[in-house]
């Protein structure tokens, strides 16, 4: 299945708070340090938001909420991405969608 990418979702996320997934250089250190070991955490989940893949974000709702916000990833991120901040923004967006 091919999904069309677009800027709308990233725009919506930025209205809800700071979302800086574009700074990520996809090294994968965050995924390696994540104590939960969920493979889409947190790099890919952020990327779903960046590329505008709404369905993917919804499909991974549980993952987004399972994050412990421990910041192990943030401490190791060489690009200085505000990873837990981005996860919070994604949670906010998911909650808003549910409220609708």
């Amino acid at each position, binding site marked *: 299945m091919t*999904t069309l*990418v677009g800027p709308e979702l990233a725009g919506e996320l930025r209205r809800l708070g700071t979302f800086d997934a*574009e700074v990520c250089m996809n090294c994968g250190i965050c995924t390696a340090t994540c104590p939960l070991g969920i493979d889409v955490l947190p790099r890919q989940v952020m990327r779903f938001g960046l590329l505008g893949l709404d369905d993917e974000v919804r499909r991974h709702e549980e993952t987004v909420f399972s994050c412990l916000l421990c910041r192990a990833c943030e401490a190791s991120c060489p690009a200085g991405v505000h990873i837990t901040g981005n996860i919070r923004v994604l949670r906010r967006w998911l909650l808003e969608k549910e409220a609708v």
Partner: protein
Amino acid sequence: MSDQVTPSPGKRRIGVYVCHCGGNISDYVDVDRVIDAVKDEADVVVARDAMFTCSDVTQEEIAKDIREQGLDGLVVASCSPKLHTTTFRGVARRGGLNPYQYTQANIREQCSWAHTDDREGATGKAISLVRAAVARTRLSEPLEPLVVETTGRAVVVGGGVAGMRAAIGLADMGLGVFLVEREAELGGWVGDLPKMFPNGTDGHELARRLQDEIHRRPAINVFTRAEVVEKTGTYGNYQVTVRAGGEQIRLDVGQVIVATGFASYEPEPGEFGYGAPGVVTLADFTRMLDEAGSPLVYHGRPVKTIAYIYCVGSRNETHPYCSRYCCSAAVHASLLVTAADPGVRQYHLYRDMRTYGRHELEYIESRRRGSVYMKFADDEPPLVTSDDGSLRVTVRDLLTGGDQLAIGPDLVVLVTGMVPRDNAELTTALKLPVGLDGFFNEIHPKLRPVETVVDGVSICGACQGPKTVAESVASGLAAAAQAAAVLKRGVAELDPQVTFVHPEACTGCGQCVGACPYSAISLVERGPAKVASIDAAACKGCGGCVPSCPEDAIDLAGYTDAQIRSMIDSLLVGSET
């Protein structure tokens, strides 16, 4: 080092030094037996062995022997002459002996290394080779380098940044320069470019500045709409014929610098949608950015989304190399787009980002400013389709777990690389060495990066392979320094081991003229007859003409017929002691 000095009744005083090479030779060759075999040869007054003949200590001992024993010939039996000819010629010179009265016998590659299973055979062969070297040395005569005056001018072919900077450099070193440009104006590719990475320097302005510098220097003579058609002459004195405006002009120069640059890769029709409206090359796109205002408009429609596809025409079967500049140039272009209109969405589809060195900072900056990067697999490039004028790019993005994604861009930029220019005429005229990739080849990429195997011809800039502006300019200056190193002395010293004619024996048959690959031989009038005459500066000492002469009227200095014959004779004597 054991001394075995024997007074000799012969006419010459030759020193022979046999090397152990730390065991490389002596493990398989009986060095003592070699010494014993040659120490009583006629004319041999010194015969010694040494653990490492090339060591400083032994070199000095040899030089001392030359002085104290009054040696007039030197033989070192060691490794390949390729390795140490210059070393021991230097030792001879330091001892006061003419360097061309030295002979190296190769008893390592040709004896100990080749016959590890046969100590007896290896030793015998070594004895024969040393005897032959003594025979050659016995007939050696002092030779002096040929000194030729050089023409203190250079021709630079190609008026891009590399060529212009080389010309300015040469002029500033006090040399005359002819700058030959194929197009109507100087400037090359850079003269056609807007802001360039990494600092946003304007290409037009950079080229103009160099042109101004050139026009301010009367030592630089510029020919535009001009092409090189022929090069003749000898080392340091070449005649280069240039075709300009329908006439042929002869330039007398001492050095030639080639700076003919690259060609931008032109995709095949249909390659990543090339040919469809909205699919452009990086070269087209940079020109568009230069001309377009803000917001960016293509064919009357505003551009809101751009997809870049990297490595087009590079790192594939036909062009296996990386073009080096394109990643950085495309990232820089995207930053210019963002600066003009932050609302434009930009997707970069790449194989590997190679924004090396400081260019990495622009890559980071472009991500901060919202550019999105997607990585595709080598064997699964993105697909560009055009339907009713609307473009669609589909890509399997490895960074999103291999999800199949689609972009609907207003513009697709094919990030095209550098390919060699079609320079068939110039390549033939200058006999330039061309590599497998189609670019011109230097002698050694690290140590001799601008010289070619063709005497007097250097190369610089992107005609050698993909280069950035900074790298092109640096190599242009390197070529200028290399050319000036030859020309500023005013004279050049050439190897005296060249052929010469015994005119009294020559019948003027002309066989040798055709045998010479360097066109160094001609027939000249000598009284009523014609005889062969060899231009020593053009001769490379290959000896190809020598056997072609039915009268044995040609000799090669340092390897005369008499020397070769005496070497063969001593080889036929064999190794018996």
